[in-house]
């Protein structure tokens, strides 16, 4: 009985986003998110889009994430605010990203109050 409860609890904490391949995977405490740049990898100083697939570990539906990017070492972000549209449940597309400097950027996805990040280095 105890074992069954643990399994149920474990199952509730796992989720699998809609298929998106190839992609980068971010495991958050509350969400699992896949993303890929279009084009991939994201270019230097040219607009690009990001395709996103995300699920909530508690099984709830997921609202459109807020997408951003910044350079931690420079303490500045982009000069653009991406727009995000839902494609299907758990699948989104962000448009209007532009990384205008070489160096280490951090892509930021804010989803359901959780902040998920992935590094992207532009030479």
């Amino acid at each position, binding site marked *: 009985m105890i074992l069954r409860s643990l399994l149920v609890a474990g199952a509730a904490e796992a989720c699998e986003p809609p298929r998106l391949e190839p992609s980068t995977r971010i495991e958050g405490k509350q969400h699992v998110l896949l993303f890929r740049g279009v084009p991939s990898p994201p270019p230097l*100083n040219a607009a690009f889009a990001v395709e996103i697939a995300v699920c909530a570990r508690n099984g709830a539906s997921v609202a459109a994430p807020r997408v951003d990017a910044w350079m931690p070492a420079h303490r*500045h972000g*982009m*000069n*653009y*605010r991406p727009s995000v549209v839902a494609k299907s449940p758990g699948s989104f597309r962000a448009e209007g990203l532009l990384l*205008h*400097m*070489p160096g280490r950027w951090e892509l930021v996805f804010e989803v359901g109050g959780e902040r998920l990040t992935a590094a992207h280095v532009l030479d």
Partner: protein
Amino acid sequence: MRPIVVLLALLLAPLAATAELLDFSAAERTQIARHGPWPPPFTPDPSNRVSGKPEAIALGRTLFFETRLSPDRRFSCASCHDPALGWSEARARSQGRTSLDRNTPSLLDIRLRRWFGWDGGHDNLWAMSLRPILDPRELASTPSAVATLLRDDATLSACYARAFGRNAAGVDDDALSIDAAKALAAFQETIGSARTPFDDFRDALERGDREAASRLPVAAQRGIRLFVGKGNCTFCHLGSAFTNDEFHSIGIPFFTASGVDGGRHAGIRTLRTSRHTLLGPWNDNPDLAPGTATRHVEPQHRNFGEFRVPGLRDVARTAPYMHDGSLATLREVVRHYSDFDPERLHSDGEAILAPLKLGDTEIDDLVAFLDALSPTSPGPDASAGPRCE
């Protein structure tokens, strides 16, 4: 015989001394390679249906030097954009019907821009071309006056018909004035900077030709090393045109005689109220020129005091420098980056710029590199091509 040998050795010594190639690291070579190749191929502007069309270029060239575009025939585009000065002018701030707050920007390589003007108030070259024609401080014309000129002048009217495939008599004022701007844009797309000693160096380095690469003076090579290294200049002056086409505060004051120059902040405001952007009805191909950057550009507080990062090609010919023309020489520009007051930055916590604290030799080297970004012989003269006859 011996004195002749000694004499030859003495004469050749300076040449041997200059024929040196610094030991650039792999990372430095990669960085240097990214500033080329040059020139990039021409790709037509999809938002302008006559981009690259010879008949439109001829009309645009004619209009560029046409003083009748100003009602009192006092000004043409060429009044400020002097071909002999890299299509800019020697005075610090433009002088139209009144004194303006900014330096006339060079038109060299303007086809490669994402934003136009010091504040990026336009997202396409034809809108940028129309602005000074209608600005009361500059040519002070109207769409109606521009249209009347194109309709009533037999030579221009025939030239328009060849360029646009329709009779000017049947086109309304707004559309005709924008067509004039699109012809001007087509012409300005032909204004490009020629290859430079830096390009020869960069290409030689890439193909491993040490002898050819060593022809660039060693001071300029040291300057390149500073540019891609200690100076961090490539954060903003990147790619083959040496600009990221974005906007930054570099500590140049933005107060003017009449108040404050809003810089990029004002530019975004202009962009959002303009009917002449890529998001508007005059874009000839929204599918290929969808205005993604315009749709997503975000005004931020730090935009006050930010101005466009200019390209550096042929920079020695486009003095004075900065948005207000306040620095007269390239040496002053390099000294500014060496010694500026960080308190003057309007950067909202950005940590990009810090005074470089350069020594005199380093300043000389960076200036030598910037000089190497100017052609040793003039390229094709865009002003000399066919005009309307």
